[in-house]
């Protein structure tokens, strides 16, 4: 069932070591890369239809085109290794098992955009992965793979790679907040311009890409976009690292071509539900995506278009599996606590709205809920949508709103069964 492109070396013992990874083909794309012009590389990535794996799913090649051409300013590649979306733990596999693939991807991407400095912004908690990356980068410098030239002078192109550790803030995964953080500030997302453009690091052009996106590039360079688009569906070609967590027998990260049925993935790779429990719901791509009921899960297909058709999104591909034992009021409370804690606080609807829903659900759980609270939650979700600097707030509206609508019966029963003495 799996199609291993990014994960092709994951099973090899000690594949994080240069010597081992090299034996198994790492840096194999570079010979071909140096025969291509930067424009040809971008065109190949465009034609491969490689989409951003950080959750947004934007076309990678198109995004690279926003970098200004023949610009005298230095340009930067910023690799997003913040991996903070709950339910998501795939980038760590790349950094843990095949850090040289990420370096190879950084080389290809930097070459394509004429970038000479790349930063890997990694969440602070992944300390051991930052160490692993640093070891791999040191190996790459020593072997002459990066540095003043590429591959010991095979290409006269300077490239430095720097690992930068975050310090615990979900919002720093949002690309502009990430850059603010890299600039030494609080991670406050920036207002987006009306036109599409690149990002800016101290006023110089920058591109932010997810770890997995960058790790997908070498395959496209080495074997051509046709090899990549052979996998998946016509509109969602290629593969993605999907993750399963929650009460399934075999939680973990699995690389799949797009187009598999979600339920098959849960039942085969995931081994089905633990302890013979029934599946109740799935949050499909990190907790920011609208929830799917068991019926919807049976119909869901893992590609971008199918997930939109069913009223959700593919997100990061991190599926949170929920079984019959879970109480959806508690699930909603758990998720809103996360968002309440993580809101950066710049926008009133987000800062106050997340707190407000948290307060309402706290009341419900402490036996002081009223049936009207359900509509109140939906109303607050309405104030969150489309009125804020970043899409954090709309995501809250999506997930909380969808839980309240799809499991309304359960909320009603919960409230009626849990009304304490204070309630008249």
């Amino acid at each position, binding site marked *: 069932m799996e199609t291993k492109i990014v994960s092709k070396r994951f099973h090899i013992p000690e594949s994080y070591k240069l010597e081992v990874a090299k034996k198994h083909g790492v840096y194999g794309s570079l010979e071909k890369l140096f025969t291509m012009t930067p424009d040809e590389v971008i065109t190949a990535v465009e034609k491969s239809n490689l989409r951003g794996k950080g959750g947004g799913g934007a076309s990678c090649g198109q995004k690279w085109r926003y970098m200004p051409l023949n610009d005298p300013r*230095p340009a930067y590649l910023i690799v997003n290794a913040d*991996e*903070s*979306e*709950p*339910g*998501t*733990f795939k980038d*760590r596999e790349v950094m843990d098992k095949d850090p040289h693939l990420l370096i190879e991807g950084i080389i290809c991407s930097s070459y394509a955009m004429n970038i000479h400095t790349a930063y890997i912004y990694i*969440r*602070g*908690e*992944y*300390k*051991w992965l930052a160490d692993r990356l640093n070891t791999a980068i040191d190996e790459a410098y020593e072997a002459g793979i990066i540095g003043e030239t590429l591959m010991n002078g095979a290409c006269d192109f300077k490239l*430095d790679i*720097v690992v*930068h*550790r*975050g*310090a*615990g*803030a*979900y919002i720093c995964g949002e690309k502009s907040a990430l850059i603010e*953080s*890299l*600039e*030494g*500030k*609080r*991670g406050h997302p920036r207002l987006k311009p009306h036109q599409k453009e690149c990002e800016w*690091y*101290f006023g*110089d052009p920058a591109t932010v890409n997810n770890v997995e996106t960058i790790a997908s590039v070498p395959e496209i360079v080495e074997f051509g976009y046709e090899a990549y688009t052979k996998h998946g569906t016509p509109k969602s070609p290629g593969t993605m690292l999907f*993750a*399963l*967590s*929650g*009460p399934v027998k075999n*939680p*973990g*990260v699995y690389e799949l071509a797009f187009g598999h049925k979600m339920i098959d993935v849960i039942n085969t790779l995931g081994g089905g539900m633990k302890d013979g429990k029934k599946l109740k719901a799935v*949050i499909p791509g990190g*907790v920011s995506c609208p929830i799917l009921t068991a019926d919807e899960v049976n119909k869901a297909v893992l590609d971008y278009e199918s997930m939109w058709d069913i009223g959700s999104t593919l997100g990061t591909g*991190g599926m*949170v*599996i*929920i*079984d019959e034992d*879970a109480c959806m009021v*508690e*699930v909603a409370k*758990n*998720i809103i*606590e*996360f968002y309440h*804690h*993580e809101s950066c606080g710049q926008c009133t609807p987000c800062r106050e709205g997340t707190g407000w829903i948290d307060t309402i659900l706290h009341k419900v759980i402490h036996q002081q809920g009223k049936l009207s609270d359900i509509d109140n939650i939906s109303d607050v979700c309405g104030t969150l949508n489309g009125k804020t600097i970043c899409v954090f707030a709309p995501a809250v509206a999506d997930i909380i709103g969808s839980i309240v609508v799809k499991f309304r019966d359960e909320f009603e029963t919960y409230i009626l069964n849990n009304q304490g003495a204070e309630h008249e």
Partner: protein
Amino acid sequence: MKNFTLTPENQEKFEKISKRYPKIDSMMLPTLWLVQEQEGWISPEAMITVSELLNTTPIRVYEVVTFYTMYNTKPTGTHHIEVCKTTSCMLCGSKEIIAYLEETLEIKPGETSADGQFTLSVVECLGSCGGAPMLAFNGDYVENLTVDKVKTLLKESSNGN
């Protein structure tokens, strides 16, 4: 107020890492990490020193320190336990783990045990949901927790390491 200084080793690291960025401003997080690795936490005195190193004001440093959850603004116990409470971990039983820790260590999240051994924090998703429920013990991830596993962990760590 006592002056805070980086150790010569850390000062050297500071200078080396600074070269990797186009502007000193980017050294904020890396410098705070050096301070925390040196002291275990970031004191007001250290914030003043950092502001001098980075050519900025103490309030700008304070602003950053208080935004990021991993920077400690007070000393922690010898061992810092951070238990994930987010969705996948909750669905797999983190509540039981947290309750066990609270009971055994006789502290609430955010507190340090009376003997100064353990600080307990309850945190949001650590990107380890496939190993839920999980915690970080002095930064190292311990996954697929059971109460027994936590019991052993506590025992081993109070026995002198």
